């Protein structure tokens, strides 16, 4: 008769401990890049959400298709041609390298035009978003750590070259 409540309590204790074991979010300044510019481990420990990643490809601070064509997103208008098409990108790079490219592409492609999305400067004349005014205080990275994981999860789905 007591067995059940005890088991329940035991479960509560375990789940209460879980956050202590969960990975801390890696801060932009604490990211460790490989010599090739990749990032071996997840920035958050929480698996990326493909749908949320797809959203960032188009909108907000991601806006990747401003520069890249992605055939899988061809229902969205106006794909740019500044960078290479991302079709089949998951066959060209592994997950760690894609994470590094999204977080700070300059580590993989020195001098690239591609912005560093998980980075906090120093910048030349940092602004307050797109207002043209000076930044107020510290600048947040363009994408959050989980945003980066979500985008990487989406990129990992681009594993074929469309006909």
């Amino acid at each position, binding site marked *: 008769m007591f067995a059940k409540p005890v088991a329940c309590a035991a479960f509560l204790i375990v789940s209460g401990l879980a956050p202590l074991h969960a990975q801390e979010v890696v801060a932009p300044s604490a990211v460790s890049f490989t010599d*090739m510019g990749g990032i071996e481990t997840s920035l958050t420990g929480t698996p990326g959400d493909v749908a949320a990643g797809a959203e960032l490809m188009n909108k907000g601070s991601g806006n990747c298709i401003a520069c890249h064509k992605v055939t899988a997103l061809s229902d969205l208008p106006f*794909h740019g041609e500044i960078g290479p098409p991302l079709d089949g990108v998951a066959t060209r790079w592994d997950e760690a390298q894609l994470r590094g490219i999204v977080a700070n592409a300059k580590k993989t*492609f020195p001098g690239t035009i591609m912005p560093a999305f998980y980075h906090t400067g120093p910048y030349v004349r940092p602004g307050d978003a797109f207002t043209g005014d000076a930044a107020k205080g510290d600048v947040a990275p363009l994408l959050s750590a989980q945003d980066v994981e979500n985008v990487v999860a989406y990129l990992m789905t681009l594993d074929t070259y469309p006909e």
Partner: protein
Amino acid sequence: MARGFRSGGAAALALVLAAPLAGADEVIDDELVINGEIPIVTQAPAPEHVEAFSVIRSGWTFRSPETQAMEMDDFDNPAILGVEAARDDFDASLGANGESCASCHESPEDLAGVRAVYPKWDDAAGEVQTIEMQVNECVTERMGAEAWPYDASRMVNMSALMSFVSRGEIVNVAIDGPAAETWQQGKDMYYTRYGQLELSCANCHEDNYDNMIRADHLSQGMVNGFPTYRLKNTKLNSVHNRFKGCIRDTMAQTFSPGSPEFVALELYVASRGNGLSVEGPAVRN
């Protein structure tokens, strides 16, 4: 091949490189003759000081046929309204002495060719001046009136008139002598990667001209067509207003129209267009 597909390894990049790279020095067939009588040089050999290009091109060559057509006939060019307004202003008396521009410069046409060499070093002022600064020098020092705000429509219209009477003249701004220091400052700015997006003018207008960035077809970012009537905001826009927007869009703290920084940048950018015609007031999207 100026753009940076610098390899991070991976033979896969070769695939990417096989795709046609835009840019290059292809010559466009389109010809711009305004009103059937003013031929405009819209592409020319690059001046020596622009190492990245062999051909320079006016922004007109990158626009859609519809937008291009609006510039071929003054009846279709909405910027001409600003020119007409400035003509009235040119004859209107102003300030303490009751003089108009016409009291000293008979007609706007008297100032033909002036735009082509601006920004220009001014000995008396000891600085490089844009056409707007020169106009304000006349307004304040010679006419005893209040300075016109740098970016106000009155000033932009007058600037449009100054371009209008110089249309077809070949841009030839001086970059040496006393202007050299300001020119170098502008050049340094051109290659500075501003803002949180860390983008320089050159990233877009030198390495990626003729490419699409989202819905925009990138030009070489020339100023020979200024001020420009933009379909986007349906008004005339000054050079500095355009610079302000381009820097703002890098998520940077931008500079103000009329600031010494933008004067230097204008001198440098104008000099990249030495050899093109004065085309303003032009139409852009």
